[in-house]
C-alpha cells in the first residue's frame, strides 16, 4: 500500500491555486526572468488509450504540438515561430500529458496567441495526421527497434512488467494499433480528456500578473468534463525470474532488469528508497556502487545505473525530465551494452551485486555521503525555470511540498535504519523481470538454463579481491525456468 505523507508536510513556497474566480488548478512561479515558461499539464495519458488504440494519447498530443490550428496550417506556424526561436513541445506518459514552451517576454503576446490556439483550437488536419502517424510508426520500427538497443530494452522491460495492465504498452503505441488510428479517434480523445477537470496550468517567469488571469480565462473555455481519476494497482506478476531475450544483429548486449514497487514520491518510504537507488546506481554518475564495480573495476561497459522512477530517454539526458508522475513505479537496473562475450558475466554481476544490496543493505558512511549528495543535488535538478516549474507541477500531482524543501526536510530526518528497512521491504528477488538485447539469443538462453559458467578475461592484472569475487560471479545461478526464458525477434516488439 502507498503510505501518504502527513498533511503537516504540505507546505509550499510556490503558489498553488488562483486568485481568479476560475476553478482551474494552477501552479504559478512569477519572477523576474526575461523568459516566460509554460507547462500546461493534463492529468491524462497513455494509460487512457482505449484498447486497440494504443498510442492515441501520444498522437493526440503530437497533433496539437506539431500540427496546424483551425486558422493556421503547420507550415504557417513554423514560419510564425521562426523569428522568436520558440516552439511548442509535448510529452506524454501514462497519467500525464504536458505541453511546454518558453519565449522571451518581448514576444510573449505573439507567442501566447498561437500557443493557446494550438491547444484550444486544434485543426486536426488530415495532412498533419498522415505525417505524424507515419513518424510514430517509424519511430517504433526504425528508431527504437533498430538504432538504440538501450532504450529498446528499457521500454520493453516496462511492457513486460505491466503486461495486461493499463500501463502495459509503450507510450508511443504499437505498430498495429497506430496503423488503424484515424483523425476521428484523435478528435474523440481530445474531446474526452482535454478537460478543465484534468488541467493544471503551469506558468513561470517575468510576465505581468494580469497575464495569469488571461490564461485562466482562455483555458477556462475547455469543457469542465470529468477528471481521469482512475486508480491503477500494482501489477500482479507471476512468481519467478522471467527473461526476454530480444534478438537483433548488434555487436553488443544491452541489459535491463526490474520489478514493480509500491513506492512513489508521495510515499513514506520514497526518500529511503531513492537514497538506496542513488547509492547503488545514480544516473550517469561515477560515484555510485554498481558503476564502480562493473565499469571502474572491470571495464565491462560505459555505465551501470539504478532507478525508482520512470526515466525515459536516459541515453540522452543527464537529469530526468519532469512531469512523468505515476501512481505505480518500478525499481530498475540498467546495464549499458557490454561486449557480446561478456553478456552472461555482466548479467550475473548485476544480479550478484543486487542480491548483495538486498542482503547487506548500505553502510553508515555510504548513507551519510549519499544523503549529502541528494540534498544538494536537488538544486542541480531544479536549476532552470522550466525544471522548477516541472517539479512544482509534480509536487502538485503527488500532494507533496516544494521539491527542494521536501527533499531537504525528508533527508534530514532519514536514518540508516530507515533506508535498510525500506530496502528489505521493497527490493525483491522473487518476481524479477529481465530484458537482454543481443545477437546471441540461443547461447545466452542455454547458458542461463544450464548454468554454464561465464569466466571473464581481462587485459590487465586485477586485485585478488576482484579475481575471487569473479569466481563467485561467473557461476552465479540465474534462477529461471525454461518456459520463462523466451527469445523474441525484435520485429515482434511494439508490433
Amino acid at each position, binding site marked *: 500500500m502507498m503510505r501518504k505523507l502527513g498533511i503537516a508536510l504540505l507546505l509550499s513556497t510556490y503558489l498553488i491555486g488562483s486568485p481568479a474566480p476560475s476553478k482551474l488548478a494552477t501552479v504559478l512561479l512569477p519572477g523576474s526572468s526575461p523568459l516566460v515558461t509554460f507547462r500546461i499539464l493534463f492529468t491524462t495519458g497513455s494509460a487512457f488509450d482505449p484498447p486497440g488504440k494504443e498510442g492515441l494519447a501520444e498522437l493526440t498530443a503530437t497533433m496539437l504540438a506539431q500540427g496546424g490550428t483551425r486558422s493556421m496550417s503547420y507550415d504557417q506556424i513554423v514560419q510564425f515561430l*521562426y523569428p522568436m*526561436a520558440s516552439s511548442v513541445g509535448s510529452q506524454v506518459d501514462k497519467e500525464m500529458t504536458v505541453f511546454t514552451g518558453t519565449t522571451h517576454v518581448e514576444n510573449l503576446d505573439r507567442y501566447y496567441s498561437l500557443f493557446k490556439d494550438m491547444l484550444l483550437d486544434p485543426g486536426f488536419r488530415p*495532412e498533419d495526421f498522415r505525417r505524424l502517424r507515419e513518424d510514430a510508426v517509424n519511430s517504433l520500427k526504425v528508431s527504437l527497434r533498430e538504432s538504440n538497443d538501450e532504450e529498446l530494452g528499457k521500454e520493453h522491460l516496462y511492457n513486460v512488467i505491466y503486461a495486461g495492465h493499463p500501463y502495459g504498452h509503450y507510450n508511443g503505441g504499437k505498430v498495429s494499433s497506430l496503423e488503424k488510428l484515424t483523425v476521428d479517434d484523435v478528435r474523440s480523445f481530445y474531446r474526452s480528456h482535454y478537460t478543465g477537470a484534468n488541467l493544471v496550468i503551469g506558468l513561470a517567469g517575468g510576465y505581468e500578473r494580469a497575464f495569469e488571469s488571461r490564461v485562466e480565462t482562455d483555458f477556462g473555455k475547455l469543457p469542465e468534463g470529468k477528471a481521469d481519476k482512475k486508480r491503477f494497482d500494482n501489477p500482479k506478476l507471476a512468481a519467478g525470474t522471467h527473461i526476454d531475450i530480444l534478438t537483433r544483429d548488434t555487436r*553488443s548486449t544491452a541489459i535491463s532488469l526490474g520489478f514493480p514497487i509500491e513506492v512513489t514520491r508521495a510515499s513514506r518510504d520514497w526518500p529511503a528508497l531513492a537514497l538506496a537507488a542513488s547509492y547503488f546506481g545514480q544516473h550517469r554518475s561515477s*560515484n555510485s556502487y554498481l558503476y564502480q564495480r562493473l565499469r571502474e573495476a572491470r571495464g565491462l561497459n*560505459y555505465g551501470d545505473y539504478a532507478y525508482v522512477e520512470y526515466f525515459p530517454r536516459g541515453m540522452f539526458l543527464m537529469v530526468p525530465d519532469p512531469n512523468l508522475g505515476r501512481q505505480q513505479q518500478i525499481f530498475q537496473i540498467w546495464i549499458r551494452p557490454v*561486449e557480446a562475450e561478456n553478456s552472461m558475466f555482466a548479467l550475473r554481476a548485476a544480479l550478484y551485486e543486487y542480491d548483495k544490496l538486498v542482503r547487506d543493505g548500505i553502510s553508515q558512511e555510504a548513507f551519510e555521503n549519499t544523503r549529502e549528495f541528494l540534498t544538494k543535488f536537488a538544486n542541480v535538478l531544479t536549476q*532552470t525555470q522550466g525544471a522548477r516549474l516541472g517539479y512544482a507541477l509534480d509536487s502538485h500531482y503527488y500532494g507533496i511540498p516544494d521539491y527542494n524543501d521536501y527533499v531537504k526536510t525528508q533527508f534530514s530526518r532519514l536514518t540508516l535504519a530507515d533506508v535498510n528497512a525500506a530496502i528489505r521491504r521493497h527490493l525483491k528477488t522473487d518476481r524479477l523481470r529481465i530484458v537482454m538485447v543481443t545477437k546471441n539469443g540461443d547461447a545466452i538462453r542455454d547458458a542461463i538454463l544450464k548454468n554454464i559458467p561465464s569466466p571473464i578475461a581481462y587485459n*590487465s592484472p586485477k586485485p585478488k579481491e576482484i579475481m575471487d569475487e569473479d569466481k563467485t560471479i561467473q557461476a552465479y545461478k540465474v534462477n529461471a525456468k525454461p518456459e520463462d526464458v523466451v527469445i523474441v525477434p525484435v520485429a515482434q516488439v511494439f508490433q
Partner: protein
Amino acid sequence: MRTPLALLSLLFCVAAVPAQQKETKLFAYNYSIDDLDNGLRLVTVPTDFPNMVALYIVVQTGSRNEVEPGKSGYAHLFEHLMFRGSENYTPDQRDLILKKAGAESNATTNQDRTTYYETFSKEDLDPVMKLEADRFQRLKYPEPAYKTETLAVLGEFNKNSADPTEKLDEVLYATAFTKHTYEHTTMGFLKDIQDMPNQYAYSLQFYNRFYRPEYTTIVLVGDVTREQAVGLTKRYFGEWKRGSYVPDIPAEPPQASPRTAVVDWNTPTLPWLAIAFKGPGYSDEKKDKAALDLLAPIAFGSTSDLYQRLVLKEQKVDNLGIDAGSHPDPELITVYARVKDPRDMDYVREQILATFKRFTDVPVDQTTLDATRSRIRYSFALRLNSSAAIANALAPYIGLRRTPETINKLFTLYQQITPQDIQSVANQYFTPNNRTIVTLTSKGAKN
C-alpha cells in the same frame, strides 16, 4: 560527441540577452578575463542565479590534435583518463568530494576541444578547484587502470554502434578529408580503440603535450566573484608549467573532384543521405562563415522551401537538417536527410543539390534574413536559463577564441551581412568539386 540527429533540431550555439543591449551585444553579461603568467586564462561570469556555480574547464584539444596514424580517439580517451586519479587524490577520493558537493560532473570531447565540467553548490568551490587543479597538473594513473579505462571507451563505442548515423558520419569524414585530422571522428576508428590498451606510454605523452595552461581556459559562472575566482585559480593553478608542443596539423588540400561513398547497413533502417560541402573555418572578422551561418537555416531549416516541401507537403523525408558547425579549420557544411522510401533517394538528392544551386543563383530575401538574425538573438537568449547553461553556451567560443567577446563580434558581423554577401559565399563554396555525398541504406534495400 557529434551526432547529426542532435544537430537536426538547431545549429546555432549562440547565448541571454538583457533587452536594453540587444542591438549591440548578444552576450551581455559582465565578465572578466584574467591571464596567469603561465598562459592559463580565467573567465569569470557572475550571475543572479543563486547558490550554484558552474565550473567549465576547456582544453583546446580534440580529435583534430590526433596527428599520428593509428592514434585516433586519444583526446576522447583522455576525457576518461582524467577521472582515473591524480597524485593527491585517488579516484575514490575524487568521487567522494564531488558526491559531498552534490555535483553534476562530466566531460565532453569533440574535434576541437575537451570540456570538463561540474555544477555544484557555491560553498564547495574551494575543494572542487583544488581537486581539478591536481588532475590537470598531476594526473597519475597506473597501467592496469589505464587498460581497464580503454574498455570503458570501447563500451561507449558499443553503446553508439547501433545508431546508423554514427557510421554515416564516420564514412562522411573519412571520405571528405584525406590529410587533415578531421578525417577521423572523435570516437576514433574501432581498430585504434581496440589497440588503445597497448598504448600506455603514448597516453602519457599525449597528456604531457596538451594538458598545459596555454591550451586551457577556466570558465566560472554563477554565484561567484572575480576576486574569489582569481584567488583560487592563482592558488591552485599558479604553479602549472607551460608546455612547448604545437601539433603539426596537416592542411587539407583543395578537393579536385566530387566524392561519393555508400554504406551498406546490416539491419533495417530508413535510408540516410548526407550531402556535404567543404566550408570555411570559424572567423568573427571575415564574412564567409557568418554568411553561411545565416544561409543554413534559410536554405535547409524548418521554414525553408525545401523542408516545407519534402517534410510537410510531400512527406518523403522525416528528418532534414543542416550542420554548419564552427571549427578552427575549414570543416563541412552538411545536410542530412532520412528518406522514408528508398526509391525516393535520387529525387531527394536532386532536390537538395538544386537547393544549394539555387542560393548561388538567387540572393536570399531580405525579410527572411532579418527574421534569421532575430532567431539567432532569441535562441541565444532562451538558452541562457541557468549558470550551467551559460557556461555551456560559452564553451564552444572559449574553445575557438578563449573569450566571450567573440560572440558579440560574430553577432555584429551577422548584422552586416547582405543578401549579396550570402550569394557570393554560396558561389565560392557550393561547387561540385567541393562536395561529398554519402548514402546509407539497409543491405538489400532497393533505390
